[in-house]
């Protein structure tokens, strides 16, 4: 697209705003792009972009995968344009493009690695046309914003350029329905694991019947929710084969083999969490597709560490206090967190502080999502106490009772910090504090009170 007078005005005004925001030490990852798009709606189409663009989308894991790809490319000497510290909607991406361009709108970078919010597809792909689109997975998310998986898939499919090569999760049949008209596709997945089952007990399984003939799908193996290797017993519909297959996972020696058409290579396993192993295999697939040599990727992954933004632990005397961002209103994220806690070692207490910050302040929360979430996973003998705090405490307590958790293990308080009073340190080794994206300050107060209680206990 030709650079217009309007484009230059948008570029310069937005660059000045970005500069001012930086001077004031304010976040410049959204507003400059918003201003540029307001002045010149096709700004993203006109601005010069790097030669190669990869977009990373999906319900969960897109930030982790994007960060891995950016770090790996930069270690290979490439300069990347990315929205790592910015927003993943159109204004955020416009801000990143602006930041990666000169005052004349020429690109300064070699490769663009952009995390894209699924719902923003229609406002982004018509202008960007990525060479590659990687989708990590598609799950049910916020009821209010994301509705259901068909809705999200329809948005992506209505916008995704047909020329883009797709990198999709073979173990996620919903993700595999992206881009029916795209000719070039590769798949990544993880081979059967010892922990796989024939039938999961997860509440959410958003594809249960064959999309071709409505017959109930069968699985060679199931992992969690709708993730697994499926086939229809009545027609030829089945999960695709993985072009990048994670196999022979050795948790003890921390290695994983990645099997491709050109051979099998051993990589260092950077996490023992299956979610992050999927993220790792997805990043390896993307880097290979971007033309990075296998040996180089192996070397890079040898030094890689997953930056855990959602999980942190601290040893306080003989107790472990864990902060875990569980993401309220996201049934899958909470269910996976509950599953992690169930399988964690030791006797545990869970501080459940999942209220939506804005709904508590301004309204009342639609609690439907807690009935999509597997609270049943918290019904485990290793979880001695579940202490619920917040405006919706009674609702969570009721949900736990319906999940079969014995009444004596549940405590309930209106205010999160007060709920710490119920913590019985004699019973537990590890305390998990679950919180939401916008409730970090409250979670920190809860943690401080727990630490105080542990130290008091030691003194006594």
């Amino acid at each position, binding site marked *: 697209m030709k650079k217009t007078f309007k484009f230059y005005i948008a570029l310069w005004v937005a660059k000045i705003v970005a500069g001012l925001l930086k001077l004031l030490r304010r976040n410049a990852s959204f507003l400059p792009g918003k201003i540029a798009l307001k002045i010149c709606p096709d700004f993203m189409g006109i601005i010069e972009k790097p030669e190669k663009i990869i977009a990373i989308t999906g319900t969960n894991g897109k930030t982790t995968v994007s960060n891995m790809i950016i770090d790996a490319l930069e270690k290979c000497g490439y300069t990347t344009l990315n929205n790592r510290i910015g927003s993943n909607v159109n204004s955020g991406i416009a801000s990143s493009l602006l930041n990666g361009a000169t005052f004349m709108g020429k690109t300064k970078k070699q490769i663009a690695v952009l995390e894209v919010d699924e719902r923003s597809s229609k406002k982004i792909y018509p202008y960007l046309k990525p060479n590659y689109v990687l989708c990590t997975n598609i799950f049910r998310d916020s*009821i209010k914003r994301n509705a259901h*998986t068909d809705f999200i898939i329809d948005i992506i499919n209505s916008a995704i350029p047909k020329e883009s090569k797709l990198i999709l999760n073979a173990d996620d049949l919903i993700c595999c329905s992206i881009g029916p008209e795209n000719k070039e596709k590769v798949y990544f997945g993880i081979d059967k694991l010892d922990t796989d089952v024939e039938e999961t007990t997860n509440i959410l399984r958003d594809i249960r019947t064959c999309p071709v003939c409505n017959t*109930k799908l069968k699985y060679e193996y199931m992992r969690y929710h709708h993730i697994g290797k499926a086939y229809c017993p009545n027609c030829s519909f089945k999960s695709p084969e993985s072009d990048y297959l994670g196999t022979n996972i050795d948790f003890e020696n921390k290695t994983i083999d990645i099997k491709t058409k050109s051979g099998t290579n051993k990589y260092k396993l950077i996490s023992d969490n299956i979610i992050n192993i999927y993220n790792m295999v997805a990043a390896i697939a993307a880097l290979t597709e971007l033309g990075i040599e296998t040996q180089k990727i192996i070397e890079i992954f040898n030094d890689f560490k997953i930056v855990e933004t959602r999980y942190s632990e601290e040893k306080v005397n003989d107790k472990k206090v864990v902060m875990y961002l569980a993401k309220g209103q996201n049934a899958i994220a909470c269910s996976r967190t509950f599953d992690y806690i169930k399988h964690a070692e030791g006797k545990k207490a869970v501080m459940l502080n999942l209220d939506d910050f804005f709904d508590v302040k301004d309204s*009342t929360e639609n609690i439907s*999502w807690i009935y999509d979430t597997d609270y049943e996973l918290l019904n485990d003998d290793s979880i001695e106490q579940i202490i619920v705090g917040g405006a919706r405490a*009674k609702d969570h*307590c009721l949900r736990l009772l*319906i999940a079969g958790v014995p009444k004596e293990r549940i405590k309930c308080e209106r205010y999160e910090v007060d709920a710490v009073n119920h913590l019985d340190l004699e019973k537990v080794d590890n305390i998990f504090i679950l919180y939401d994206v916008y409730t970090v300050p409250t979670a920190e107060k809860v943690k401080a009170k727990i630490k105080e209680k542990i130290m008091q206990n030691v003194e006594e």
Partner: protein
Amino acid sequence: MKIEVLFPESCNLYGDIQNMVYLKKCMPEAEFIETAIDEEPKFVKEDMNLIYLGSMKERTQEKVINKLLPYKQRIEELINNNTVFLFTGNSFEILGKYIENEDGSKIDALGIFDIYAKRDMMHRYNGMVLGKIDDMEIVGFKSLFSFSYGNNENEYFLKLQKGIGLNKETKLEGIRRNNFIGTYLTGPFLIINPLFTKYLMELMGVENPKLEFEETIMEAYENRLAEFKSKRVSEQGH
């Protein structure tokens, strides 16, 4: 007692199916039959005390219409003989005349009720509802891509004090004909409305219905009711 849960593998959005999980806890002796979408519904040949259908994706609505169309007469017969039905979320739209897409195309539905639905997939409505059946106060959540139109003045489920009814222009929510209850309210509707759950069990013929976890469920209900009555819960959704 026999309860048929229709197509739970496909019609289970927003926690709707947990309505039946909770009901099962209140009625441990009852037989709950789950019918998959590729099976013939049991109500075709047997009488049921309750037939339940939950919220579904828009494409699934079309599959369910095709599935139930051959049994239209039987459904009408059951409604006329006072069988209890509970259809939550967008599920009762399949019993209207048609569902209209944004482009004006129409999907013929069963035509049992004199209403029709219109979809607007780019504008999701989220809101809350406070209403009454006689003196019983009902609370609920709506999260929808569609509204229904037509006259439900003589066949409504709830009269609302807060929130919107079948569409933004009416305070009359849902459809009620004999013991057929269809409501746009989604999610754990029975769990957040324990008094209605008792009422529903009475309609089904349960003598002295009991609520499981009665103390906690009533406390949660009273809390929510107070919040819904407060000024901060807005009249209209967004």
